[in-house]
C-alpha cells in the first residue's frame, strides 16, 4: 500500500457546505393531455425525492475524500453539486480554487472534429485559455498516447483512445480540486497505471480530490478520509478503515 501523504496542518478550507439539501421532483406524466386531465390534482402526481439531506461538510486542501454508499445514496448528486452542475434546493455551498471534474470522459467531444480540434474545444470548456492549451498540447498528446491519430476525426477513434484523450485533457487543467466519478477504470492496464500515478502526483502537489467509487480497494489505497452516504444523509465521516466497515454494516441492515 502506498504511503499516505500527510495533510498540511493549517490547510485552508476549499469546500464548505452548510445545510445543503437537494430535492428532486419527479413528475409522473409529461404530456399535455395528462396534465390537463390531472389539472388541480397535479400535486398528487408529483413525487418528491430527497437526494441530499441537510449536509454540513468541510473539506480542506490536500485531502483525498472518498464518497461511498449504496446505489442511489446521493454520491454522484453531491459530486455534481460540488461541481456546480446541479444547484442545491436549500443551503449554501462555497469553494475556492480551480476545479476539474472527471465525471464522464469525452462528454464534450465532437465526433466530426479532429483530436487536435477537440483538445482545444474541450480544454476551453474546462476553462483553459488557447495560450495555455497551446503550451500543454504536446504534453496532452504524449500522455494520451494517441500519436499520429491526433489529426484524425475522433469518430474514428477506438473507445479506448477516446477515453485516453479525454483523460489527458482533463488532468492537464492542473486543478486545485479534482472530482472523480468512477472513471479510473478506463483504458488498458498500462494506462490505468498511468492514471493512478497521475492522481498520486496530484495528491503530492496538494490537490484536493473527491472521489466516488464502489471499489473498496481503490478507496483504501487512495483516500485519507471517507464519507459514507445513505439516502442522502451522512452516516459516517472519518478515517478510511472505519468508513469502509461502516459501509458494510449498513449493507447488512
Amino acid at each position, binding site marked *: 500500500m502506498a504511503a499516505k501523504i500527510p495533510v498540511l496542518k493549517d*490547510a485552508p478550507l476549499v469546500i464548505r457546505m452548510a445545510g445543503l439539501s437537494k430535492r*428532486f421532483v419527479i413528475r409522473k406524466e409529461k404530456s399535455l393531455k395528462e396534465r390537463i386531465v390531472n389539472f388541480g390534482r397535479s400535486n398528487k402526481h408529483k413525487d418528491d425525492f430527497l437526494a441530499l439531506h441537510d449536509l454540513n461538510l468541510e473539506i480542506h486542501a*490536500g485531502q483525498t475524500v472518498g464518497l461511498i454508499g449504496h446505489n442511489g445514496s446521493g454520491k454522484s448528486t453531491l459530486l455534481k453539486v460540488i461541481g456546480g*452542475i*446541479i444547484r442545491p434546493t436549500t443551503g449554501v455551498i462555497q469553494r475556492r480554487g480551480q*476545479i476539474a471534474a472527471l*465525471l464522464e470522459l469525452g462528454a464534450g467531444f465532437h465526433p466530426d472534429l479532429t483530436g487536435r480540434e477537440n483538445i482545444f474545444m474541450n480544454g476551453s470548456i474546462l476553462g483553459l485559455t*488557447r495560450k495555455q492549451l497551446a503550451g500543454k498540447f504536446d504534453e496532452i498528446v504524449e500522455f494520451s498516447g494517441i500519436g499520429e491519430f491526433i489529426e484524425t476525426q475522433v469518430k474514428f477513434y477506438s473507445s479506448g483512445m477516446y477515453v485516453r484523450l479525454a483523460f489527458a485533457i482533463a488532468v492537464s487543467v492542473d486543478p486545485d480540486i479534482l472530482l472523480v466519478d468512477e472513471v479510473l477504470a478506463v483504458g488498458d492496464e498500462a494506462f490505468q497505471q498511468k492514471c493512478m500515478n497521475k492522481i498520486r502526483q496530484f495528491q503530492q502537489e*496538494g*490537490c484536493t480530490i473527491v472521489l466516488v467509487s464502489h471499489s473498496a480497494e481503490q478507496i483504501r489505497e487512495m483516500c485519507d478520509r471517507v464519507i459514507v452516504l445513505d439516502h442522502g444523509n451522512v452516516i459516517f465521516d472519518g478515517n478510511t478503515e472505519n468508513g469502509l466497515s461502516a459501509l458494510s454494516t449498513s449493507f447488512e441492515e
Partner: protein
Amino acid sequence: MTDIARQRAERLAAQPLITLASGPGGFFRGTINDLRELWKRRELQGILVRRELKNRYKDSALGFLWTLIKPITMLLVYYFALGQILGASRNTPEYAIFVFAGLTIWGLYADILTSSTMSILQNAALIKKVYMPREVFPLASVGSALLNFCIQFGVLLVAMIVFGQVPVNWDSLYIIPAVLVVAIFGTALALVLSALNVYLRDVQYLVDVMVVLLFWASPVVYAFRSVAGSDAAGVGTWLYQLYLLNPITIAVVAFQRGTWLHGHGVETSLAKSHIPLSHNYPADLDLRLIIAIVVGLVFLWFAHRLFTRLQGNFAQEI
C-alpha cells in the same frame, strides 16, 4: 510535504471562498457577475460558433455554398411567383433587391430562433457533466446566425451594385439599427426559448409555426406601402398600430430603407408612378427604432434573468 503543495495551500488561503449560486442571486449584481464570467469565456464562445458552423454543413460537398443556395432559391421563388406572376413587381421597383433585402434580415431572425431553441438540448451531454455558463450555447447559435447573415449581406451588396444602385449614402446608416434590433430581440428570445424548451419540448414545434406566421407579419415579400394603404390595416386603424408594434417589422422596414429605398433606380421609378418615397416607411421610423432598441435591451435583461433562474435545473431536466 512538497513545496508545490505548500504554495498551493498559500495561494488558496489567499483566495476568498466563492458561494456557488444557490438561488438566482441579486437582480443587478447577478447580471454583472454573469457578464463578467461570460466575458472570461469568450474564447469558448468563438470555438462553439466555429463548431456550430462546421457542424451545419458537415460532410457536404458544397459546404458553405448552401448558406447561399437556400436564400437564392427563396429569392427566385418569390421573385417569379409573387413578383412576376402575381404582379407585385409592378408596384415595387427593383423587386429582386427588395425581396432579397427582406429575406436577408428576416433570415437572420428566423435562423436565430430556430437554431437557438434546440441549442441547450443538443448540448445535453456537456451540460450534464461539466459546469460552464450555459448562456454560451444560445449565444453561439446567435453568433453563427450573424456570420451567415454577413455572407448573405455580402451577396446583397453585390446584387445592389449589379442592379446599378449606389451602395452607400446617408440612408445606409439605417442598416445598423435594423440589425441591432433583430440581434437584440433575437438574443433575448434565444435565451428564453432555449431554456423553456428544456422543460417543455413543445416549444421547438411552436417556434417552427411562429416563424412561418411571423414571416407574413413583417413586410418581407410585400411592400410596407400595401399595408399602410389597405382598408383593413391602413394608417390609423388599430391593426396598423399593432402591426408596427412588432419590432421586427420596424427592423425590416429600416433595413429596406438602408438597402433598397435609397437606391437611385427606386426613387426615379417611384417618382414616375407618383408614389411619395415616405409612403414606403412609417412616418416616425427613427423614433420607433430607438424605442425598439431600448425596449429590446430591457427585454434582453429580463430574458437573461429568466434564463439564470431556469438554468439551475437544466442538468436534471434534460
